[in-house]
Protein backbone atom coordinates (compact mmCIF):
# COMPACT_ATOMS: atom_id res chain seq x y z
CA UNK A 1 0.00 0.00 0.00
CA UNK A 2 1.56 3.29 -0.98
CA UNK A 3 0.44 6.25 1.08
CA UNK A 4 -1.35 9.11 -0.62
CA UNK A 5 0.91 11.97 -1.62
CA UNK A 6 0.82 14.67 1.00
CA UNK A 7 2.17 17.31 -1.31
CA UNK A 8 2.57 17.73 -5.00
CA UNK A 9 5.42 20.22 -4.96
CA UNK A 10 8.76 18.56 -5.47
CA UNK A 11 10.86 17.99 -2.39
CA UNK A 12 14.03 20.01 -1.84
CA UNK A 13 17.01 17.81 -2.67
CA UNK A 14 19.78 20.12 -1.50
CA UNK A 15 22.24 18.03 0.42
CA UNK A 16 24.59 19.63 2.91
CA UNK A 17 27.62 17.67 3.95
CA UNK A 18 29.43 20.01 6.27
CA UNK A 19 31.28 22.53 4.10
CA UNK A 20 30.09 20.92 0.86
CA UNK A 21 26.64 21.31 -0.69
CA UNK A 22 25.43 18.85 -3.33
CA UNK A 23 22.50 19.33 -5.71
CA UNK A 24 21.06 16.03 -4.54
CA UNK A 25 22.03 13.15 -2.27
CA UNK A 26 23.08 10.65 -4.96
CA UNK A 27 26.81 10.16 -5.46
CA UNK A 28 28.51 7.52 -7.63
CA UNK A 29 30.65 5.24 -5.45
CA UNK A 30 34.38 4.81 -5.85
CA UNK A 31 35.48 2.02 -8.15
CA UNK A 32 32.05 1.49 -9.63
CA UNK A 33 31.86 4.39 -12.05
CA UNK A 34 35.35 4.51 -13.48
CA UNK A 35 37.09 7.77 -12.74
CA UNK A 36 33.78 9.55 -13.26
CA UNK A 37 34.16 10.95 -16.75
CA UNK A 38 33.84 7.77 -18.83
CA UNK A 39 30.18 8.27 -19.69
CA UNK A 40 30.02 12.04 -19.47
CA UNK A 41 29.10 12.26 -23.16
CA UNK A 42 26.27 9.77 -22.78
CA UNK A 43 24.77 10.29 -19.35
CA UNK A 44 23.78 13.68 -18.01
CA UNK A 45 25.89 13.82 -14.87
CA UNK A 46 24.33 17.11 -13.82
CA UNK A 47 21.58 14.88 -12.39
CA UNK A 48 24.03 13.43 -9.91
CA UNK A 49 25.02 15.00 -6.62
CA UNK A 50 28.58 13.97 -7.31
CA UNK A 51 31.02 11.29 -8.31
CA UNK A 52 33.81 9.69 -6.34
CA UNK A 53 36.72 8.61 -8.51
CA UNK A 54 38.31 5.19 -8.60
CA UNK A 55 40.75 5.05 -5.68
CA UNK A 56 44.04 6.67 -6.70
CA UNK A 57 47.38 5.64 -5.20
CA UNK A 58 50.81 7.25 -5.47
CA UNK A 59 52.08 4.77 -8.02
CA UNK A 60 50.08 3.05 -10.73
CA UNK A 61 48.75 -0.37 -9.72
CA UNK A 62 48.08 -3.19 -12.17
CA UNK A 63 45.62 -4.81 -9.77
CA UNK A 64 44.98 -8.45 -8.95
CA UNK A 65 45.08 -11.40 -11.34
CA UNK A 66 41.77 -12.72 -12.74
CA UNK A 67 39.14 -13.77 -11.91
CA UNK A 68 38.30 -10.48 -10.33
CA UNK A 69 34.57 -10.90 -9.83
CA UNK A 70 32.12 -13.62 -9.04
CA UNK A 71 28.40 -13.35 -8.47
CA UNK A 72 26.91 -14.68 -5.22
CA UNK A 73 23.27 -14.78 -4.06
CA UNK A 74 22.06 -11.18 -4.44
CA UNK A 75 25.64 -9.95 -4.33
CA UNK A 76 29.04 -9.98 -5.95
CA UNK A 77 32.57 -10.46 -4.74
CA UNK A 78 35.34 -8.39 -6.24
CA UNK A 79 39.06 -8.55 -6.04
CA UNK A 80 40.16 -5.68 -8.24
CA UNK A 81 43.20 -4.95 -6.12
CA UNK A 82 42.99 -1.17 -6.37
CA UNK A 83 44.00 -1.09 -10.01
CA UNK A 84 44.52 2.55 -10.94
CA UNK A 85 46.64 4.79 -13.11
CA UNK A 86 48.52 6.35 -10.20
CA UNK A 87 48.80 9.94 -9.09
CA UNK A 88 50.80 11.31 -12.02
CA UNK A 89 48.49 10.02 -14.77
CA UNK A 90 45.47 10.96 -12.66
CA UNK A 91 46.70 14.55 -12.57
CA UNK A 92 47.58 14.83 -16.22
CA UNK A 93 45.02 12.62 -17.93
CA UNK A 94 41.98 12.38 -15.70
CA UNK A 95 41.73 15.60 -13.70
CA UNK A 96 41.38 17.97 -16.67
CA UNK A 97 38.32 16.02 -17.79
CA UNK A 98 36.93 15.59 -14.30
CA UNK A 99 37.16 19.32 -13.70
CA UNK A 100 34.58 19.78 -16.48
CA UNK A 101 31.93 17.54 -14.94
CA UNK A 102 28.64 19.21 -14.03
CA UNK A 103 28.59 17.69 -10.53
CA UNK A 104 30.83 17.56 -7.50
CA UNK A 105 33.98 15.47 -7.92
CA UNK A 106 35.55 13.74 -4.95
CA UNK A 107 38.92 12.07 -5.38
CA UNK A 108 39.19 8.71 -3.63
CA UNK A 109 42.69 8.28 -2.24
CA UNK A 110 44.34 5.12 -1.03
CA UNK A 111 47.62 4.66 0.77
CA UNK A 112 49.41 2.00 2.72
CA UNK A 113 50.54 4.55 5.29
CA UNK A 114 49.56 8.00 6.52
CA UNK A 115 52.58 9.40 4.70
CA UNK A 116 51.39 8.11 1.34
CA UNK A 117 48.03 9.76 1.91
CA UNK A 118 49.66 13.01 2.92
CA UNK A 119 51.67 13.07 -0.27
CA UNK A 120 48.55 12.43 -2.35
CA UNK A 121 46.65 15.27 -0.72
CA UNK A 122 49.57 17.66 -0.96
CA UNK A 123 49.94 16.93 -4.67
CA UNK A 124 46.25 17.30 -5.43
CA UNK A 125 45.96 20.54 -3.46
CA UNK A 126 47.93 22.07 -6.32
CA UNK A 127 45.19 21.11 -8.75
CA UNK A 128 41.76 22.52 -9.28
CA UNK A 129 38.57 20.68 -10.20
CA UNK A 130 38.05 18.69 -7.01
CA UNK A 131 35.53 19.36 -4.27
CA UNK A 132 36.91 16.91 -1.78
CA UNK A 133 38.79 13.76 -0.91
CA UNK A 134 37.41 10.47 0.22
CA UNK A 135 40.07 8.46 2.02
CA UNK A 136 39.73 4.74 1.33
CA UNK A 137 40.62 3.35 4.75
CA UNK A 138 40.18 -0.22 3.50
CA UNK A 139 43.37 -0.04 1.48
CA UNK A 140 45.47 -2.96 2.75
CA UNK A 141 48.94 -2.41 4.13
CA UNK A 142 50.83 -5.38 2.78
CA UNK A 143 53.55 -5.32 5.43
CA UNK A 144 51.54 -4.43 8.53
CA UNK A 145 48.15 -5.94 9.23
CA UNK A 146 46.93 -6.20 5.66
CA UNK A 147 43.38 -4.97 5.33
CA UNK A 148 43.20 -4.49 9.10
CA UNK A 149 45.96 -1.91 9.18
CA UNK A 150 43.51 0.98 9.31
CA UNK A 151 41.13 -0.67 11.79
CA UNK A 152 42.86 1.33 14.47
CA UNK A 153 41.11 4.32 15.99
CA UNK A 154 44.30 6.18 16.97
CA UNK A 155 45.80 5.80 13.53
CA UNK A 156 42.57 6.93 11.89
CA UNK A 157 42.36 9.99 14.07
CA UNK A 158 45.94 11.11 13.59
CA UNK A 159 45.80 10.45 9.85
CA UNK A 160 42.61 12.47 9.43
CA UNK A 161 44.12 15.28 11.49
CA UNK A 162 47.22 15.33 9.37
CA UNK A 163 45.25 15.33 6.11
CA UNK A 164 42.78 17.94 7.32
CA UNK A 165 45.60 20.32 8.14
CA UNK A 166 46.75 20.10 4.53
CA UNK A 167 43.55 20.85 2.69
CA UNK A 168 40.79 23.42 2.36
CA UNK A 169 38.64 20.80 0.69
CA UNK A 170 36.12 18.43 2.19
CA UNK A 171 37.62 15.36 3.79
CA UNK A 172 35.55 12.18 3.91
CA UNK A 173 36.76 9.10 5.74
CA UNK A 174 35.53 5.90 4.06
CA UNK A 175 35.48 3.21 6.70
CA UNK A 176 35.79 -0.55 6.46
CA UNK A 177 32.73 -2.42 7.77
CA UNK A 178 34.88 -5.35 8.86
CA UNK A 179 35.40 -4.08 12.38
CA UNK A 180 34.03 -4.82 15.81
CA UNK A 181 32.90 -1.28 16.45
CA UNK A 182 32.23 0.96 13.43
CA UNK A 183 31.09 3.80 15.68
CA UNK A 184 34.48 3.88 17.40
CA UNK A 185 36.19 4.26 14.02
CA UNK A 186 33.76 6.98 12.98
CA UNK A 187 34.33 8.91 16.20
CA UNK A 188 38.07 8.72 15.59
CA UNK A 189 37.65 10.15 12.10
CA UNK A 190 35.45 12.91 13.49
CA UNK A 191 37.96 13.69 16.21
CA UNK A 192 40.64 13.94 13.53
CA UNK A 193 38.59 16.56 11.69
CA UNK A 194 36.92 14.56 8.92
CA UNK A 195 33.96 16.42 7.43
CA UNK A 196 32.01 13.22 6.84
CA UNK A 197 32.32 9.48 7.16
CA UNK A 198 31.43 7.19 4.29
CA UNK A 199 30.28 3.63 4.86
CA UNK A 200 30.18 0.86 3.96
CA UNK A 201 33.03 -0.44 1.91
CA UNK A 202 32.79 -4.11 0.97
CA UNK A 203 32.61 -7.01 3.43
CA UNK A 204 35.37 -9.62 3.29
CA UNK A 205 34.08 -12.76 1.61
CA UNK A 206 35.01 -15.59 -0.68
CA UNK A 207 33.65 -18.21 -3.06
CA UNK A 208 35.20 -21.53 -3.96
CA UNK A 209 35.03 -23.94 -6.84
CA UNK A 210 34.61 -27.57 -5.77
CA UNK A 211 35.61 -29.06 -9.10
CA UNK A 212 38.99 -27.32 -9.17
CA UNK A 213 39.36 -27.14 -5.36
CA UNK A 214 40.32 -23.51 -5.62
CA UNK A 215 39.07 -20.03 -4.95
CA UNK A 216 36.87 -18.52 -7.61
CA UNK A 217 38.74 -15.22 -7.38
CA UNK A 218 42.37 -14.71 -8.28
CA UNK A 219 43.00 -14.05 -4.59
CA UNK A 220 41.62 -16.06 -1.66
CA UNK A 221 39.19 -13.38 -0.59
CA UNK A 222 37.43 -10.37 -2.04
CA UNK A 223 34.83 -7.85 -1.06
CA UNK A 224 31.07 -8.45 -1.05
CA UNK A 225 28.77 -5.74 -2.38
CA UNK A 226 25.23 -5.50 -3.70
CA UNK A 227 21.74 -6.06 -2.24
CA UNK A 228 22.94 -8.96 -0.07
CA UNK A 229 24.79 -6.47 2.16
CA UNK A 230 22.11 -3.80 2.38
CA UNK A 231 20.78 -4.98 5.77
CA UNK A 232 24.33 -4.93 7.18
CA UNK A 233 25.07 -1.52 5.70
CA UNK A 234 21.84 0.00 7.02
CA UNK A 235 22.66 -1.22 10.52
CA UNK A 236 26.14 0.30 10.42
CA UNK A 237 24.86 3.61 9.06
CA UNK A 238 22.20 3.67 11.76
CA UNK A 239 24.68 3.03 14.52
CA UNK A 240 27.38 5.38 13.24
CA UNK A 241 25.03 8.26 12.50
CA UNK A 242 23.90 8.08 16.12
CA UNK A 243 27.51 8.22 17.31
CA UNK A 244 28.93 11.21 15.43
CA UNK A 245 27.87 14.78 14.68
CA UNK A 246 29.41 14.92 11.21
CA UNK A 247 27.31 13.72 8.28
CA UNK A 248 27.33 10.10 7.21
CA UNK A 249 27.42 9.14 3.53
CA UNK A 250 25.72 5.76 3.38
CA UNK A 251 25.85 2.95 0.87
CA UNK A 252 25.74 -0.76 0.35
CA UNK A 253 23.41 -2.53 -2.05
CA UNK A 254 21.40 0.46 -3.17
CA UNK A 255 19.38 -0.51 -6.25
CA UNK A 256 16.09 1.39 -5.99
CA UNK A 257 14.91 4.80 -4.95
CA UNK A 258 13.39 3.25 -1.84
CA UNK A 259 16.81 1.90 -0.94
CA UNK A 260 18.14 5.47 -1.14
CA UNK A 261 15.45 6.71 1.21
CA UNK A 262 16.01 3.87 3.66
CA UNK A 263 19.59 5.03 4.10
CA UNK A 264 18.42 8.60 4.67
CA UNK A 265 15.82 7.39 7.17
CA UNK A 266 18.40 5.61 9.33
CA UNK A 267 20.67 8.63 9.33
CA UNK A 268 22.66 9.01 6.12
CA UNK A 269 22.86 12.58 4.83
CA UNK A 270 23.73 11.40 1.33
CA UNK A 271 24.21 8.05 -0.34
CA UNK A 272 26.50 6.41 -2.83
CA UNK A 273 25.48 4.00 -5.53
CA UNK A 274 28.00 1.31 -6.40
CA UNK A 275 27.37 -2.13 -7.84
CA UNK A 276 24.07 -0.99 -9.40
CA UNK A 277 26.15 0.87 -12.01
CA UNK A 278 27.36 -2.44 -13.39
CA UNK A 279 23.81 -3.46 -14.23
CA UNK A 280 23.19 -0.18 -15.92
CA UNK A 281 25.62 2.71 -16.16
CA UNK A 282 22.81 5.21 -15.67
CA UNK A 283 21.69 3.64 -12.38
CA UNK A 284 22.72 6.59 -10.22
CA UNK A 285 21.20 9.19 -12.53
CA UNK A 286 17.94 7.25 -12.78
CA UNK A 287 17.67 7.05 -9.00
CA UNK A 288 18.44 10.74 -8.66
CA UNK A 289 15.64 11.57 -11.04
CA UNK A 290 13.12 9.80 -8.85
CA UNK A 291 14.13 10.90 -5.37
CA UNK A 292 12.15 14.15 -5.25
CA UNK A 293 8.86 12.56 -6.18
CA UNK A 294 9.23 9.64 -3.83
CA UNK A 295 10.17 11.94 -0.95
CA UNK A 296 7.01 13.95 -1.57
CA UNK A 297 4.90 10.80 -1.74
CA UNK A 298 6.20 9.81 1.64
CA UNK A 299 5.43 13.22 3.08
CA UNK A 300 8.91 14.68 3.32
CA UNK A 301 9.49 18.22 2.12
CA UNK A 302 13.23 17.79 1.74
CA UNK A 303 16.10 15.35 1.87
CA UNK A 304 17.14 17.06 5.04
CA UNK A 305 13.82 16.32 6.73
CA UNK A 306 14.23 12.63 6.14
CA UNK A 307 17.79 12.27 7.42
CA UNK A 308 17.63 10.19 10.60
CA UNK A 309 13.84 10.50 10.83
CA UNK A 310 13.52 6.97 12.14
CA UNK A 311 12.71 6.64 15.82
CA UNK A 312 15.73 5.90 17.96
CA UNK A 313 14.75 3.83 21.00
CA UNK A 314 16.69 4.40 24.20
CA UNK A 315 19.52 1.97 24.82
CA UNK A 316 22.20 0.83 22.45
CA UNK A 317 21.42 0.43 18.79
CA UNK A 318 22.74 -3.12 18.49
CA UNK A 319 20.21 -5.40 20.11
CA UNK A 320 21.19 -8.88 18.95
Amino acid sequence: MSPTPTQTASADLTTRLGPLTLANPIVAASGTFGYGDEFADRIDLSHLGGVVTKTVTLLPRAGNPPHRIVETPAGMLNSIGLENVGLAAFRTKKLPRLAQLPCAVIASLGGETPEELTRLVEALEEESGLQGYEINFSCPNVKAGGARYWANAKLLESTCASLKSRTRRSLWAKLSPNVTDPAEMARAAEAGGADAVTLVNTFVGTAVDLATRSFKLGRPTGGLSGPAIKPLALAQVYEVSGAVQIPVVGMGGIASVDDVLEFLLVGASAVQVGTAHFLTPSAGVRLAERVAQRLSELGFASVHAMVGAIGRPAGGPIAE
Partner: protein
Amino acid sequence: MSAESTLAPPKSSWIEVEGGVVRNQLLPGKRHHYAVIELPASFPAPLAGQFAMLGPSPSPSGLLLKRPMSVARAWREADHLYLGFLYTVVGSGTQALARARERWTVLGPLGRGFPLSQGPRILVAGGRGVAPLVLLAEECARRGEAVAFLNGARNAAELIAPEDLGAGAFAEGSVLLETTEDGSRGRQGRVLDALDDPRVRALFAKPGAMFYSCGPHGLLEAVGHAARERKASTSVALEAHMACGTGICRSCVIPRAPGAPVPAEASNTSFLLACLDGPCVPADTVDWKNAP
Protein backbone atom coordinates in the same frame (compact mmCIF):
# COMPACT_ATOMS: atom_id res chain seq x y z
CA MET B 1 52.83 -6.52 -36.91
CA SER B 2 51.81 -4.15 -34.20
CA ALA B 3 49.03 -5.12 -31.90
CA GLU B 4 47.05 -2.11 -33.00
CA SER B 5 46.86 -2.64 -36.71
CA THR B 6 44.46 -5.55 -36.41
CA LEU B 7 42.19 -4.01 -33.83
CA ALA B 8 38.83 -2.80 -35.02
CA PRO B 9 38.18 0.73 -33.83
CA PRO B 10 36.46 0.82 -30.46
CA LYS B 11 32.81 1.37 -31.08
CA SER B 12 31.33 2.38 -27.78
CA SER B 13 27.97 3.72 -28.79
CA TRP B 14 26.06 1.29 -26.60
CA ILE B 15 22.55 1.88 -25.45
CA GLU B 16 20.43 -0.04 -22.98
CA VAL B 17 16.98 -1.17 -24.03
CA GLU B 18 14.38 -3.78 -23.28
CA GLY B 19 13.57 -6.18 -26.05
CA GLY B 20 10.86 -8.71 -26.68
CA VAL B 21 11.91 -12.35 -26.72
CA VAL B 22 10.88 -13.62 -30.13
CA ARG B 23 12.36 -17.04 -29.61
CA ASN B 24 14.29 -18.69 -26.77
CA GLN B 25 14.68 -22.41 -26.88
CA LEU B 26 16.98 -25.39 -26.64
CA LEU B 27 18.48 -26.30 -29.99
CA PRO B 28 17.99 -29.88 -31.23
CA GLY B 29 21.28 -31.20 -29.78
CA LYS B 30 19.86 -30.15 -26.38
CA ARG B 31 23.13 -28.56 -25.27
CA HIS B 32 22.73 -24.96 -26.39
CA HIS B 33 19.97 -22.39 -26.42
CA TYR B 34 19.22 -19.93 -29.17
CA ALA B 35 17.36 -16.72 -28.49
CA VAL B 36 16.20 -13.97 -30.81
CA ILE B 37 15.45 -10.58 -29.31
CA GLU B 38 13.50 -7.82 -30.99
CA LEU B 39 14.99 -4.38 -30.34
CA PRO B 40 14.06 -0.87 -31.39
CA ALA B 41 15.63 0.19 -34.66
CA SER B 42 17.67 2.78 -32.75
CA PHE B 43 19.86 0.02 -31.36
CA PRO B 44 23.22 0.34 -33.18
CA ALA B 45 24.00 -2.56 -35.52
CA PRO B 46 26.73 -4.67 -33.91
CA LEU B 47 29.97 -5.62 -35.64
CA ALA B 48 30.87 -9.31 -35.75
CA GLY B 49 32.76 -10.10 -32.53
CA GLN B 50 30.95 -7.48 -30.48
CA PHE B 51 28.85 -8.59 -27.54
CA ALA B 52 25.97 -7.44 -25.38
CA MET B 53 25.23 -7.65 -21.67
CA LEU B 54 21.98 -9.54 -21.24
CA GLY B 55 19.56 -9.97 -18.40
CA PRO B 56 16.00 -11.15 -17.94
CA SER B 57 13.42 -8.44 -17.42
CA PRO B 58 12.17 -8.27 -14.75
CA SER B 59 15.31 -9.57 -13.11
CA PRO B 60 14.72 -12.40 -10.61
CA SER B 61 15.46 -11.08 -7.15
CA GLY B 62 18.61 -13.09 -6.44
CA LEU B 63 20.27 -12.34 -9.77
CA LEU B 64 22.52 -9.33 -9.83
CA LEU B 65 24.58 -8.87 -12.96
CA LYS B 66 23.87 -9.13 -16.64
CA ARG B 67 25.80 -11.75 -18.61
CA PRO B 68 28.00 -11.11 -21.66
CA MET B 69 27.06 -12.89 -24.87
CA SER B 70 28.45 -12.54 -28.38
CA VAL B 71 26.01 -11.46 -31.02
CA ALA B 72 25.52 -14.50 -33.26
CA ARG B 73 23.09 -12.99 -35.71
CA ALA B 74 21.75 -9.51 -36.47
CA TRP B 75 19.25 -8.30 -39.01
CA ARG B 76 16.80 -5.49 -39.61
CA GLU B 77 13.21 -6.18 -40.43
CA ALA B 78 10.27 -3.80 -40.45
CA ASP B 79 11.09 -1.23 -37.79
CA HIS B 80 13.23 -3.45 -35.64
CA LEU B 81 16.68 -4.81 -35.15
CA TYR B 82 16.77 -8.49 -34.34
CA LEU B 83 19.72 -10.00 -32.48
CA GLY B 84 20.37 -13.72 -32.14
CA PHE B 85 22.31 -15.18 -29.21
CA LEU B 86 23.62 -18.73 -28.93
CA TYR B 87 24.24 -19.68 -25.34
CA THR B 88 24.80 -22.57 -23.00
CA VAL B 89 23.22 -22.85 -19.58
CA VAL B 90 26.16 -23.18 -17.20
CA GLY B 91 25.01 -21.38 -14.05
CA SER B 92 22.45 -19.10 -12.50
CA GLY B 93 22.69 -16.27 -15.02
CA THR B 94 22.27 -18.37 -18.12
CA GLN B 95 19.60 -20.40 -16.32
CA ALA B 96 17.65 -17.20 -15.69
CA LEU B 97 17.98 -16.20 -19.34
CA ALA B 98 16.67 -19.58 -20.45
CA ARG B 99 13.62 -19.11 -18.21
CA ALA B 100 12.86 -15.54 -19.32
CA ARG B 101 10.63 -15.93 -22.29
CA GLU B 102 9.07 -12.48 -22.45
CA ARG B 103 11.57 -9.65 -22.19
CA TRP B 104 15.31 -9.24 -21.87
CA THR B 105 17.31 -6.15 -21.10
CA VAL B 106 20.09 -5.65 -23.62
CA LEU B 107 23.08 -3.34 -23.13
CA GLY B 108 25.18 -3.09 -26.25
CA PRO B 109 26.77 -3.34 -28.66
CA LEU B 110 29.99 -3.56 -26.67
CA GLY B 111 33.68 -4.08 -27.22
CA ARG B 112 35.87 -4.35 -30.27
CA GLY B 113 34.74 -6.72 -32.99
CA PHE B 114 36.78 -8.65 -35.51
CA PRO B 115 38.80 -6.43 -37.86
CA LEU B 116 38.13 -7.17 -41.52
CA SER B 117 41.35 -8.15 -43.26
CA GLN B 118 41.90 -8.16 -47.00
CA GLY B 119 43.41 -11.62 -47.36
CA PRO B 120 42.00 -15.11 -46.88
CA ARG B 121 39.92 -15.60 -43.76
CA ILE B 122 40.04 -18.75 -41.67
CA LEU B 123 37.30 -18.90 -39.05
CA VAL B 124 37.91 -21.39 -36.23
CA ALA B 125 35.02 -22.19 -33.89
CA GLY B 126 35.27 -24.26 -30.72
CA GLY B 127 31.90 -25.39 -29.38
CA ARG B 128 29.56 -22.53 -28.53
CA GLY B 129 32.40 -20.19 -29.60
CA VAL B 130 30.84 -20.48 -33.04
CA ALA B 131 28.45 -17.64 -32.11
CA PRO B 132 30.41 -14.54 -33.23
CA LEU B 133 31.83 -16.41 -36.22
CA VAL B 134 28.34 -16.99 -37.58
CA LEU B 135 27.85 -13.23 -37.68
CA LEU B 136 31.29 -12.77 -39.26
CA ALA B 137 30.55 -15.43 -41.89
CA GLU B 138 27.24 -13.77 -42.69
CA GLU B 139 28.94 -10.42 -43.08
CA CYS B 140 31.50 -11.96 -45.46
CA ALA B 141 28.74 -13.71 -47.41
CA ARG B 142 26.90 -10.43 -47.76
CA ARG B 143 30.03 -8.94 -49.29
CA GLY B 144 30.39 -12.01 -51.50
CA GLU B 145 33.70 -12.90 -49.85
CA ALA B 146 34.63 -16.55 -49.35
CA VAL B 147 35.77 -17.91 -45.99
CA ALA B 148 37.13 -21.14 -44.58
CA PHE B 149 34.90 -22.12 -41.68
CA LEU B 150 36.41 -24.70 -39.35
CA ASN B 151 33.73 -25.73 -36.93
CA GLY B 152 34.69 -28.10 -34.12
CA ALA B 153 33.01 -29.48 -31.03
CA ARG B 154 33.21 -32.40 -28.66
CA ASN B 155 30.44 -34.30 -30.40
CA ALA B 156 27.52 -33.93 -32.77
CA ALA B 157 25.17 -32.71 -30.04
CA GLU B 158 27.57 -29.91 -29.12
CA LEU B 159 28.20 -28.80 -32.68
CA ILE B 160 26.21 -25.86 -33.97
CA ALA B 161 26.32 -25.08 -37.67
CA PRO B 162 25.49 -21.57 -38.94
CA GLU B 163 22.35 -22.89 -40.62
CA ASP B 164 21.09 -24.15 -37.24
CA LEU B 165 20.71 -20.48 -36.37
CA GLY B 166 19.09 -19.75 -39.73
CA ALA B 167 22.19 -18.10 -41.21
CA GLY B 168 22.33 -17.91 -45.00
CA ALA B 169 24.71 -19.67 -47.38
CA PHE B 170 28.41 -18.77 -47.57
CA ALA B 171 29.88 -16.99 -50.59
CA GLU B 172 31.04 -19.16 -53.43
CA GLY B 173 34.45 -20.67 -52.91
CA SER B 174 33.95 -21.01 -49.15
CA VAL B 175 35.07 -24.15 -47.37
CA LEU B 176 33.09 -25.57 -44.44
CA LEU B 177 34.82 -28.25 -42.39
CA GLU B 178 33.25 -29.88 -39.36
CA THR B 179 35.19 -31.80 -36.75
CA THR B 180 34.09 -33.61 -33.61
CA GLU B 181 36.35 -35.16 -31.02
CA ASP B 182 34.36 -38.39 -31.04
CA GLY B 183 33.74 -38.43 -34.76
CA SER B 184 29.97 -38.36 -34.34
CA ARG B 185 29.75 -35.64 -36.96
CA GLY B 186 32.20 -34.53 -39.64
CA ARG B 187 35.82 -35.51 -39.33
CA GLN B 188 37.07 -37.06 -36.08
CA GLY B 189 39.67 -35.00 -34.31
CA ARG B 190 40.25 -31.49 -33.09
CA VAL B 191 39.14 -28.48 -35.00
CA LEU B 192 42.65 -27.36 -35.97
CA ASP B 193 43.35 -30.74 -37.56
CA ALA B 194 41.29 -29.40 -40.43
CA LEU B 195 44.11 -26.98 -41.23
CA ASP B 196 45.75 -29.82 -43.16
CA ASP B 197 42.84 -29.88 -45.58
CA PRO B 198 44.32 -29.00 -48.98
CA ARG B 199 41.73 -26.29 -49.63
CA VAL B 200 42.64 -24.61 -46.39
CA ARG B 201 46.37 -25.03 -46.90
CA ALA B 202 46.01 -23.34 -50.26
CA LEU B 203 44.78 -20.20 -48.52
CA PHE B 204 48.09 -19.61 -46.78
CA ALA B 205 49.82 -19.34 -50.13
CA LYS B 206 48.04 -16.02 -50.62
CA PRO B 207 49.16 -12.91 -48.75
CA GLY B 208 47.42 -11.55 -45.67
CA ALA B 209 45.73 -14.68 -44.35
CA MET B 210 43.98 -14.08 -41.05
CA PHE B 211 42.56 -16.39 -38.40
CA TYR B 212 39.35 -15.48 -36.58
CA SER B 213 38.55 -17.64 -33.61
CA CYS B 214 36.33 -18.02 -30.60
CA GLY B 215 36.18 -20.89 -28.14
CA PRO B 216 38.02 -22.16 -25.06
CA HIS B 217 41.16 -20.16 -24.32
CA GLY B 218 43.24 -23.30 -25.03
CA LEU B 219 41.96 -23.22 -28.59
CA LEU B 220 42.69 -19.53 -28.98
CA GLU B 221 46.25 -20.13 -27.84
CA ALA B 222 46.60 -22.97 -30.37
CA VAL B 223 45.24 -20.69 -33.08
CA GLY B 224 48.00 -18.26 -32.16
CA HIS B 225 50.63 -20.96 -32.64
CA ALA B 226 49.10 -22.11 -35.93
CA ALA B 227 49.04 -18.55 -37.21
CA ARG B 228 52.65 -17.90 -36.22
CA GLU B 229 53.78 -21.02 -38.12
CA ARG B 230 51.85 -19.85 -41.13
CA LYS B 231 52.81 -16.17 -40.79
CA ALA B 232 49.12 -15.33 -40.62
CA SER B 233 47.58 -12.76 -38.35
CA THR B 234 44.83 -13.44 -35.81
CA SER B 235 41.86 -12.00 -34.08
CA VAL B 236 40.52 -14.14 -31.24
CA ALA B 237 37.52 -13.43 -29.04
CA LEU B 238 38.37 -13.53 -25.32
CA GLU B 239 36.10 -14.54 -22.50
CA ALA B 240 36.34 -13.12 -19.00
CA HIS B 241 34.12 -12.76 -15.96
CA MET B 242 32.50 -9.42 -16.57
CA ALA B 243 30.45 -7.30 -14.20
CA CYS B 244 29.76 -4.27 -16.40
CA GLY B 245 30.89 -4.80 -20.00
CA THR B 246 31.49 -1.06 -20.30
CA GLY B 247 34.94 -0.58 -18.80
CA ILE B 248 34.03 0.80 -15.39
CA CYS B 249 34.42 -2.21 -13.10
CA ARG B 250 37.91 -3.38 -14.18
CA SER B 251 36.98 -7.00 -13.65
CA CYS B 252 37.56 -8.51 -17.09
CA VAL B 253 41.35 -8.47 -17.17
CA ILE B 254 43.45 -10.87 -19.23
CA PRO B 255 47.22 -10.72 -18.76
CA ARG B 256 49.16 -9.19 -21.62
CA ALA B 257 51.83 -11.31 -23.27
CA PRO B 258 55.24 -10.38 -21.85
CA GLY B 259 56.88 -8.11 -24.34
CA ALA B 260 53.76 -7.51 -26.43
CA PRO B 261 53.51 -3.89 -27.50
CA VAL B 262 51.38 -1.82 -25.15
CA PRO B 263 49.51 1.05 -26.78
CA ALA B 264 50.38 4.44 -25.34
CA GLU B 265 46.81 5.09 -24.30
CA ALA B 266 46.47 1.72 -22.50
CA SER B 267 44.90 2.09 -19.08
CA ASN B 268 46.84 -0.86 -17.73
CA THR B 269 50.20 -2.08 -18.94
CA SER B 270 49.88 -5.54 -17.38
CA PHE B 271 46.38 -6.52 -18.42
CA LEU B 272 44.09 -6.26 -21.39
CA LEU B 273 40.52 -5.34 -20.57
CA ALA B 274 38.36 -7.89 -22.38
CA CYS B 275 35.39 -5.54 -22.66
CA LEU B 276 37.22 -2.46 -23.97
CA ASP B 277 40.51 -3.68 -25.48
CA GLY B 278 38.67 -6.80 -26.65
CA PRO B 279 36.97 -9.14 -26.78
CA CYS B 280 38.66 -9.53 -30.18
CA VAL B 281 42.43 -9.19 -29.88
CA PRO B 282 45.45 -10.64 -31.69
CA ALA B 283 46.32 -13.99 -30.10
CA ASP B 284 49.93 -12.98 -29.52
CA THR B 285 48.98 -10.08 -27.23
CA VAL B 286 47.77 -12.51 -24.54
CA ASP B 287 49.79 -14.29 -21.86
CA TRP B 288 47.90 -17.57 -22.23
CA LYS B 289 49.79 -19.30 -19.41
CA ASN B 290 48.28 -16.89 -16.90
CA ALA B 291 44.97 -16.29 -18.59
CA PRO B 292 42.03 -17.70 -16.65
